[in-house]
């Protein structure tokens, strides 16, 4: 256990380094692309005097390094600054969008795992069957059709034509559970089926590979039933790649699915990041990207811990 604790401590240290690296890159990128927040905020009501006054007031006229150091100084104390555009604290803006993002990510992952894992296992067990062909073909469609296009089709079919589900928007679970579910189904399906297709393909190939290993042949030769072979020998050896791909998918989903969030007017992190880029709202963008990076790193860490739990041969040193 001590090794696990040491491992986690080391990883947290690495995470802090990674987050620092991410913030440097984001800062460099946003200043590398053309466009500045004050000019965008003023838009066509541009006035040179007002421009100068706003630059000065917001501190955007100071040298870049100075701006970054000032931001970093408050960031390490937990203050992510104030969004230039809305003048609201960035932490609050990100937290406010968290429930919607978690809801969509959770529902999409639930769907993706619920569909992708069982189908992948069954397809592998019955390789070459009709079901295998149909499921593999469907997953091909799933990974090649863009989620936003599928989303538009769902809206046109299930909202406009059939009138079964609302076309867009997000309702809090605590305000209206039925409304929460009805608003969630379409975007979760649009995103979830893409993830399901990716997970399906990984699961199928991981299980197939385990089937072709020597230990499987030995297990069969011992006369174990197919069921025992699958549950005791094949699946335990297939879990590692499966957990990896599920972790990666969850990381993507928690970062917000920008295009789908825009399409479904879903008030998540992705839409916030999109607005921040458009406005060149540096502090807001830093906040959202740091959150996304943090989520990725945490999930990575969890996946690594699960590895050891799934396969005792893996050591944390």
């Amino acid at each position, binding site marked *: 256990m001590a090794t696990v604790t040491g491992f986690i401590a080391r990883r947290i240290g690495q995470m802090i380094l990674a987050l620092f690296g991410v913030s440097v890159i984001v800062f460099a990128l946003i200043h590398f*692309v*053309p*466009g*500045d927040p004050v*000019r*965008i*905020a*003023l*838009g*066509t*009501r*541009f*006035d*040179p*005097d*007002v421009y100068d*006054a*706003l630059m000065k*007031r917001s501190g955007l006229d100071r040298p870049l390094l100075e701006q970054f150091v000032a931001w970093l100084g408050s960031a390490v104390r937990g203050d992510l600054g104030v969004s230039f*555009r*809305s*003048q*609201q604290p960035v932490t609050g803006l990100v937290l*406010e*969008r968290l*429930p*919607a993002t978690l809801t969509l990510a959770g529902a999409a992952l639930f769907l993706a795992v619920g569909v992708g894992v069982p189908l992948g296992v069954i397809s592998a067990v019955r390789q070459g069957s009709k079901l295998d062909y149909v499921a593999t073909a469907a997953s091909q469609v799933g990974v090649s059709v863009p989620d936003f296009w599928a989303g*538009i089709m769902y*809206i*046109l079919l299930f*909202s*406009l034509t059939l*009138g079964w589900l*609302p*076309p*867009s*928007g*997000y*309702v*809090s679970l605590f*305000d209206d559970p039925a409304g929460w579910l009805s608003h969630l189904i379409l975007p979760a399906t649009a995103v979830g089926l893409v993830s399901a297709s990716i997970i399906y393909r990984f699961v199928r190939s991981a299980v197939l590979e385990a089937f072709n290993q020597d230990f499987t042949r030995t297990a069969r030769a011992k006369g174990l039933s197919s069921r025992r072979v699958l549950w005791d020998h094949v699946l335990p050896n297939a879990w590692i790649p499966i957990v990896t791909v599920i972790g990666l998918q969850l990381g993507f989903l928690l970062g917000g699915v920008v295009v789908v969030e*825009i*399409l*479904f*007017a879903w*008030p998540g992190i992705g*839409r916030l990041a999109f*607005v921040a880029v*458009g*406005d*060149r709202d540096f502090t807001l963008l830093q906040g959202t990207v740091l959150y996304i990076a943090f989520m990725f790193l945490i999930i990575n860490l969890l996946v690594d811990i699960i590895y050891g739990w799934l396969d005792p041969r893996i050591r944390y040193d």
Partner: protein
Amino acid sequence: MRTKQLLRTLAVLGVLAVVLAACTSDEGSGGTLVAAQGAEPDRLDPHLTSAFASFQILENVYDTLVQPGDDLTMEPALAESWEVSDDQLTWTFTLRDGVTFHNGRALVADDVVYSYERIMDPDTGAANAFRFASVESVTAPDNSTVVITLTRPTPNLLVNIGGFKGMAIIPQEIVDDGTIDTTPVGTGPFVFVSSSPDQGIELERNDDYWQDGLPLLDGVRFVQIPDATVKLTNLRTGEVDWIDSVPPQDLESLADEESVVLERVPGGDYHYFALNQAREPFDNPDVRSAIAMAIDRPAIAEAAQFGAATANQTAIPEGNFWHHDFAPYGVADIDGARALLDGAGVSDLTIEFMVSSDFPETVTQAQVIASQLEPLGISVEISDVDFGTWLDRQGQGDFDAFMLSWIGNIDPDDFYYAQHHTEGGFNFQGYSNPDVDDLLDAARVETDDDARKTLYDQAAELIVGEASYIYLYNPENIGAWGDHVTGYGVRGDNAVRFVNTELEE
């Protein structure tokens, strides 16, 4: 037996509850209207936001001293009357009695002074400070009188102080306690209640509104739906009652839809493009005129707006008092254009057109213009960038041509000064003609409307003739709402006012 009785009692109670609920909700209730806007409001400080989405909301929360009526002439709002001194330098406004802010405090003249001084203060960074350029002072001799003293006659003072809610009268306390961006407090028909990512922005009826019997609605809830097709679908399925725009390509299909009311009115907006006069050969007026001559404006308007627009060679649309009937260029006059280009010694011209997908019609227009200029031997390279980059390159003069539109202008000074005066804040194309400067300066202080119009007509002829801007068309303002919504109309200035609106069963 007992269970049966209990059930019966419950059933009776249930029916009663339904009846009671129906009665209470019917009583004097206009309902809550759900309005869908395409963009997200950024901040709610009326003096500091420049986002149209914010103003759609603030229009219903704040008031100005005077405001544009339905025909866009300025009419009383918080000021019930005003007088102008003979020398045109002193304007005295008398405030309406009994107006209170949403926090219950009575409006006094000092609030007007505070609001205007806040906009004028350079440290505030208000984009509308320029509207007070001719104002020397704003004073409050008593609680219901505001005196504005000017350094020069300012015929468009009323438009400057009341043209839109960027000039709103605010209570100082919400600036002092820092809540103005999150909890606006005005004197308007609706009171700001809350804002959240899932519920949108909620407003409720102001029971103490200064217009008796108004507003009719119990409240308005603004939701943000960025995708135009999805926004329209929400209207079609009844999820929302009102949407702020309609994609032009959907106009035809919507016209047949019974449950949706579609309204199209001529607006004061215009679409244009401008050539960079700091670059050769666009510094030559003949080259610019040749391009203005070779394009086919009706075809551009049709392609970009599906017929919901009127081609115009000047800025101000027909039907507006300040419209000047002036159209020196033909339609797709390739021969005339070639003669001008030959005279200027220009051949093999390539123009980089800077447009932005954030305003998709500019991309369509650039494509149409590219094909229209082809017979002239001009090749157009379309550079489609995001609006942030667009503004940056415009500011740095890094373009051959840029294309955009101007919205919400009312007074002719708004149409011409910032854009075409040598000192104009938005003159990024680099136009400079001393005659135009003189005309625009003179028109700024001319108090006789007819004489003022003559000055603007002369300026317009030079601006159009030398193609400082190449004007394309005036789009219609388009709105759509459910057929159960009454008392709403699309306005010429695109302001969104729900004060007279009602929902019917």
